[in-house]
């Protein structure tokens, strides 16, 4: 019997948004050669939070960051991420010294059947797999714990959480695979501070500024001094003060209804059928409304615009097996390392 294809939320979400982009990623297994730095910080914070919740040892958690960013002394990007991640996790530990929930599992992977809601039969083509940040118990109920980093938490951000297809999907599958009733989701949101370390000014920049100030000065003199670069310690202090503000952390609890699960099952099944139909006909059309989703180009925009030029594919993309988000999970979770 043919093995079922593993599918994930990311896969179905991309298929739903743009079939062309889906085909580049999941059929041709292409990813952009250049990695998005925002994703680096996000995954670093996820790792840090997992460690913190597992051990409750801040020193060890910060050491984890040190080990993850070993080139920080000579790599400005790593240095910036290191400073921010460190301040975020220190602030987080201070903000939540005790938790009112009990952690049951962290980075929990799951895999389940995709069911036809009309017949109750399982799909012969696909299974669905995923990984949740955490499973917790709060007041006798079970919740998913979902970590998020955000630039800003506003009303639209919070309202959007109600429509989070991923979380409804994960809740449903975790409920099925663990046989636990999932009441809802606790969104654990950390805000990314926009503070930047003061770079200081060069002698030439200072001179230009001084000349400008002198020109404006009525007395013909100025007390301006050359700005020196902000020290690491001073910047860390500024970041710490920022993260002492409770509004830099937010927890939002959302209860899920059984109706949402029913809708989800139907939608997921429809997606599988649409995929099989597209595969049979070999048609993966482009959703041009998605090309600039979130105000920036889709990772596959360069290929689509070039009409699939091999020059673009071979120079700007690399091949990576799909479902990277499941790595460190499914394959090794229950396997002894020796």
């Amino acid at each position: 019997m043919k093995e079922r294809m593993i599918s994930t939320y990311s896969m179905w979400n991309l298929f739903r948004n743009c079939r062309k982009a889906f085909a580049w990623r999941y059929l041709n297994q292409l990813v952009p050669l250049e990695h998005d730095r925002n994703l680096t910080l996000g995954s670093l914070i996820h790792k840090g939070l997992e460690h913190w919740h597992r051990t409750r040892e801040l020193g060890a958690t910060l050491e984890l960051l040190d080990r993850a960013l070993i080139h920080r002394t000579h790599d400005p990007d790593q240095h910036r991420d290191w400073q921010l991640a460190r301040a975020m996790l220190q602030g987080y530990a201070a903000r939540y010294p005790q938790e009112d929930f009990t952690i049951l599992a962290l980075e929990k992977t799951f895999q389940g059947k995709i069911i036809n809601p009309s017949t109750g039969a399982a799909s012969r083509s696909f299974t669905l797999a995923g990984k949740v940040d955490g499973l917790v118990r709060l007041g006798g109920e079970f919740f998913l714990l979902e970590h998020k980093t955000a630039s800003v938490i506003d009303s639209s951000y919070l309202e959007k959480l109600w429509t989070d297809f991923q979380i409804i999907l994960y809740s449903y599958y975790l409920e099925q695979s663990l046989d636990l009733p999932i009441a809802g989701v606790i969104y654990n949101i950390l805000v990314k501070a926009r503070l930047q370390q003061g770079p200081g000014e060069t002698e030439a920049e200072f001179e230009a500024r001084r000349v400008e100030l002198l020109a404006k000065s009525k007395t013909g003199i100025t007390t301006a001094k050359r700005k020196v670069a902000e020290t690491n310690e001073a910047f860390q202090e500024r970041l710490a003060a920022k993260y002492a503000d409770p509004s830099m952390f937010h927890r939002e609890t959302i209860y899920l209804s059984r109706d949402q699960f029913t809708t989800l099952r139907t939608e997921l099944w429809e997606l599988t059928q649409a995929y099989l139909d597209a595969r049979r006909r070999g048609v993966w059309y482009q959703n041009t409304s998605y090309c600039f989703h979130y105000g920036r180009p889709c990772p596959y925009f360069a290929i689509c615009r070039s009409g699939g030029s091999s020059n673009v594919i071979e120079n700007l993309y690399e091949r990576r097996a799909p479902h990277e988000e499941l790595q460190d999970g499914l394959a090794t979770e229950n396997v002894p390392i020796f």
Partner: protein
Amino acid sequence: MLPIKKTPPKTNLSDLTVLIYGQSKFGKSTWCAQAENALFLATEAGLNNLEVFQIPITNWEEMLVACKEIAEGNHSFKTIVIDTIDNAFRMCAEHLCQKFKIEHESDLGYGKGYALINNEFQRVLNKLTLLPYGLFLVSHSQEREIETRTGKLTRIVPTLPDKARKTVLGMVDMILFCDLEVKVGNDGKSTTRRVIRTKPNPHYEAGDRTGRLPETIELHYQSFLKAWNTPGKPSNTAPAASITNL
């Protein structure tokens, strides 16, 4: 209206769009000058020692006028060389800034300035590629540090701004990287030669959609022609992994 036969692959150099890039004074213009009936749209000085047909271009309007005359077809040129495409892009940016009375493309806000420049640049290049002439685009090279999933990597890329570079890479049939090849002989002495690299590599950008060229060719137009005119010759590298036809 519907086609009755498939279009054959391009075998005529005059149908091709080529990006050639490398260090300054490496011989890129000299190489292009040997192309069949070449006309240079010279956007930078540097052709002084070459006997070529050239139109000095100092701004985008002059570029458009030259392109219009080329498109009219009352000439015997078969290859158009934009030397350099970097300067052409800069002129395009300046033109748009003047048109919108701004100092810098970022002044328009929300990335509108950048988008207008890229659209104008792409529009003109697209029209040029559709003309029945070969189009050679010359660019300089620069080292760029890129962050991959497995770490940082230093890569040699054309000096065009990022978006323009991606546009050009997607438009051309060949990306030719001019490089020095060092070989150590049996006597232990190393010799260098100037070469063109035609296949992609983690450390530089290159490519050949036609699949006709070997991985490395001497930086000499006759060597290039010889390689081009030897179809079916096996490439020095494995062919790119198959891409699902979308």
